[in-house]
């Protein structure tokens, strides 16, 4: 045996210093840099080896916390991030302002190296579709914390929407090298989906589902898997996947929409309508409204369709009054059900801050509807440049080819669209089949 280690007398002399000195100090170490992370399930987790105890209810608990401990930069960042997540799922824009307020407060409390607030600001900018700003915050976050996988997630999302795909893939790779967890695997899956490699996209999304630790992550994975099944012409699989998600999260609007589309593809329009309505009751997002409106139109219910379109027009009026940038749903709606020249203007404006393939596609379609087929083709090519297997993009380009008199190219795009997803759109799928037949019957 070795020498005895020193043996202090237990300090029973309770010199009552101001109590808590100890622990306070430790707290200081823990929270000086104040990193509290909020998983979607609402636990605040001190970014130390031990998370803080879970609280009852995400926002409520965090609001309590910043009320009691208003100088906790980490708690403010977590609250801001919680608002960002909430805004995504409820589409209540007032929430964005609350998110920004909390995140700014966090940055005031801790201006330097506040990675969580930087991540939150980046995610908030992305949710508002301000991707240049999102990129700026993401870069700050990866600089302040070069080993933080979440920072690379924000970076990857921004690069993707800015059309800088190789940079996005590199960021996703880095994120997965650091921690291949559910959010990282979901992004890896998306890089393959963008490149049209559906097999790998499905395999990685299955892994993401298996690695998921929260309802939100699992719902997201089921939604994507349902969509990928639909895009492979497997409507039954799509319905099964959506149903699996809804068993756990019956009010998840994205899952309800996924099941609605699967029902529609399976020839069950009334169930599809019911699911769309349920999704819209949760969050009246434009693509739900557009999906339901066009489904109703295809079923010969012009009044019901018009009711959805009216809401879309109301949303569009609000958007214009706010000078916000249009989303692709609004552009396609304007092109198909409004003024194509206006849709072109909207798309060109959107492309300036968001040169993503979906925006190129929306601009292509708007240009075509406005009679500018030659320009439209250039945009349609860019929308499909990554090799994405997207039936709607392919259909759009097919129609543009046809307008330019190139029926061979139109035929090949139509076949690709219909073999990818036979029921890709309530109205356009039938048009695609008819056009293919016309082309095939043209001597």
């Amino acid at each position: 045996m070795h020498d005895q280690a020193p043996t202090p007398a237990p300090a029973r002399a309770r010199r009552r210093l101001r109590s808590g000195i100890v622990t306070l100090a430790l707290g200081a170490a823990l929270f000086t840099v104040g990193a509290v992370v909020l998983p979607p399930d609402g636990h605040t987790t001190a970014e130390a080896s031990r998370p803080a105890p879970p609280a009852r209810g995400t926002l409520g608990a965090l609001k309590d916390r910043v009320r009691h401990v208003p100088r906790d930069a980490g708690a403010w960042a977590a609250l801001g991030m919680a608002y960002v997540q909430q805004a995504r799922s409820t589409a209540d824009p007032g929430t964005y302002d609350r998110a920004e307020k909390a995140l700014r407060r966090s940055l005031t409390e801790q201006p330097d190296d506040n990675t969580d607030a930087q991540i939150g600001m980046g995610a908030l900018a992305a949710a508002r579709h301000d991707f240049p700003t999102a990129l700026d915050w993401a870069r700050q976050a990866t600089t302040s914390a070069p080993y933080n996988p979440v920072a690379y997630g924000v970076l990857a999302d921004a690069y993707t929407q800015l059309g800088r795909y190789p940079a996005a893939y590199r960021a996703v790779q880095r994120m997965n090298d650091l921690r291949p967890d559910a959010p990282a695997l979901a992004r890896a899956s998306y890089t393959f989906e963008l490149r049209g490699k559906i097999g790998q996209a499905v395999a990685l999304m299955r892994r993401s589902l298996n690695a998921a630790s929260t309802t939100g992550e699992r719902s997201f994975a089921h939604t994507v898997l349902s969509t990928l099944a639909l895009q492979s012409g497997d409507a039954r699989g799509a319905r099964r996947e959506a149903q699996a998600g809804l068993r756990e999260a019956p009010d998840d609007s994205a899952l309800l929409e996924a099941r609605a589309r699967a029902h529609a593809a399976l020839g069950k329009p009334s169930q599809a309508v019911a699911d769309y309505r349920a999704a819209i009751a949760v969050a009246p997002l434009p693509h739900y409204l557009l999906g339901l409106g066009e489904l109703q139109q295809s079923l010969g219910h012009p009044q019901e369709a018009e009711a959805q379109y009216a809401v879309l027009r109301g949303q569009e009026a609000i958007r214009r009054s706010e000078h916000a940038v249009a989303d692709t749903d609004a552009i396609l709606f304007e092109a198909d059900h409004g003024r194509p020249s206006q849709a072109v203007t909207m798309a060109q404006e959107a492309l300036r801050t968001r040169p993503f393939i979906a925006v190129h596609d929306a601009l292509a379609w708007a240009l075509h509807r406005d009679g500018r087929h030659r320009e439209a083709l250039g945009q349609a090519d860019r929308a499909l440049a990554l090799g994405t297997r997207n039936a709607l993009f392919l259909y759009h380009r097919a129609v543009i080819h046809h307008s330019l008199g190139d029926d061979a190219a139109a035929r090949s795009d139509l076949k690709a669209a219909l073999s990818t997803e036979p029921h890709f759109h309530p109205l356009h799928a039938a048009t695609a089949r008819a056009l293919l037949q016309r082309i095939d019957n043209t001597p």
Partner: protein
Amino acid sequence: MKATTARRRSRRVLDHSLLVLGTGALAVSVSVLTLAPGVSQASSHREAPLIAGDPRADNTDVYAFTSPDKPDSVTLVANWIPFEEPNGGPNFYAFADDARYNIKIDNNGDGVSDVTYTWRFRNQVRDTANQFLYNTGQVTSLTDPDLNFRQVYDLVLTKNGRSRVLKSNVPVAPSRVGPASMPDYGALRNQAVSSLAGGGKTFAGQADDPFFADLRVFDLLYGGNLSERGQDTLAGYNVNSVALQIPKKELALRGNSSRNPVIGVWSTTDRQGVQVADSRTRHDKWRQVSRLGNPLVNEVVVPLKYKDAFNTLNPDQDRTVKPVVDKVFDPILPKLIQKVYGVPAPATPRNDLAEIYLTGICKACGPIKADLNAHRLNKDASLKQIVPAEELRLNMAVPPTADPQRYGVLAGDLAGFPNGRRLTDDAIDISLQAVEGAAQTGTLVPALADGDKVNTNDRPFNTSFPYLALPHTKSVNSGPGGNQAQQQSSLRTSSAIGAGALGSLMLGAGGWRLRRRNRTS
């Protein structure tokens, strides 16, 4: 942007558009009104979840001690998934079947694992049609057909670059559902303890979280209230544990634990990587996503900024991350204590802390006047190979103490932290004393003697392997509603057990379901 004016303006726009649109729109105007500006952008670009947390992969604590009832062996315990809410309605916790759980042992001090034990878990669902049911009736054994969801594991030993399966298809102790479903959980726990060839034992399953501390104290820095100090904020929660009892000679350098009694221990979790794009570099190998050796290492040693990096490093790389090493020699914590409370911070560089965390304690290693647990004490260790590396170091030659002191070595009880770590060691109080220099001076800092006022775990530990207390069954966060829900679910279970097949049907309609839900709802 002023929200109110914006809202008023959009309201005007809206009223106007509704006039234009006519009655068709009136029906839906209510939902439009709830849509202020951002909604038209709240879609169409893929927003995958960002921040999730990975509790099944995140190490919480590691313990290493000479087995008190079997002193020729060492017990190693590692925990994951903190804050498991018992009965949290209905709420069950499983190990990840897509991760690898490791306990690593470095016996020559080079920062590289010489002996690695790996748990690889698999899920088994008896009735796949009803795979969301955890159990379909009363569970009296691990092979009970009523246990619908089960986990088994293979235990793999890696030595000298060669891996072999020590034992396969070992059953895991399930989440403790409650007294009605599992009337004798202790029996299930015992069935999950399996013997290994050569005299060892392995266990995996749910347990009471042995870590005890008042974590609310961390709020103090921001002006929180101290009046409620002294409540174990981890009381009542469960964790998922793996544990091993291994003869000392299996772990010691050259198999000789009397010549080479010191081992370094840490635990890691790996997840499989992904190849996103073609490149010459392979990215799809297993990646270390979590690591833990000494308790509270992030609080005392690793600056927050490097926490993510630290999780990915092997101990032999620690010395290459200069900011981390610098922090060991010059920690923030004592300065804060001095600033806030006037207790003078010990002089730097803190070679005593470097001993505790990076080299182990020996007379030749630094200022602490004892030969306790440094790799240098291993007679067959090559001094040239030994590097500073953060590991939990245990001198296996120190005999177990009959009456363990919660202050461990600082109270003269050499069989406790920082010489290994026992379940009863008070990690927070010891770490604080160490950071204030007590290990070097040999005197406890009286101002800190109260610590967090939580000195023991909320339930006693067992006297034999795996020593962990059985999991709790009572919800921690059960308000009035929580209790009600709990009663209902136990009713459902008992009726299910009484009613046999009918009961199973009832369960299917919303009884026990296998899912790890938000534990806070």
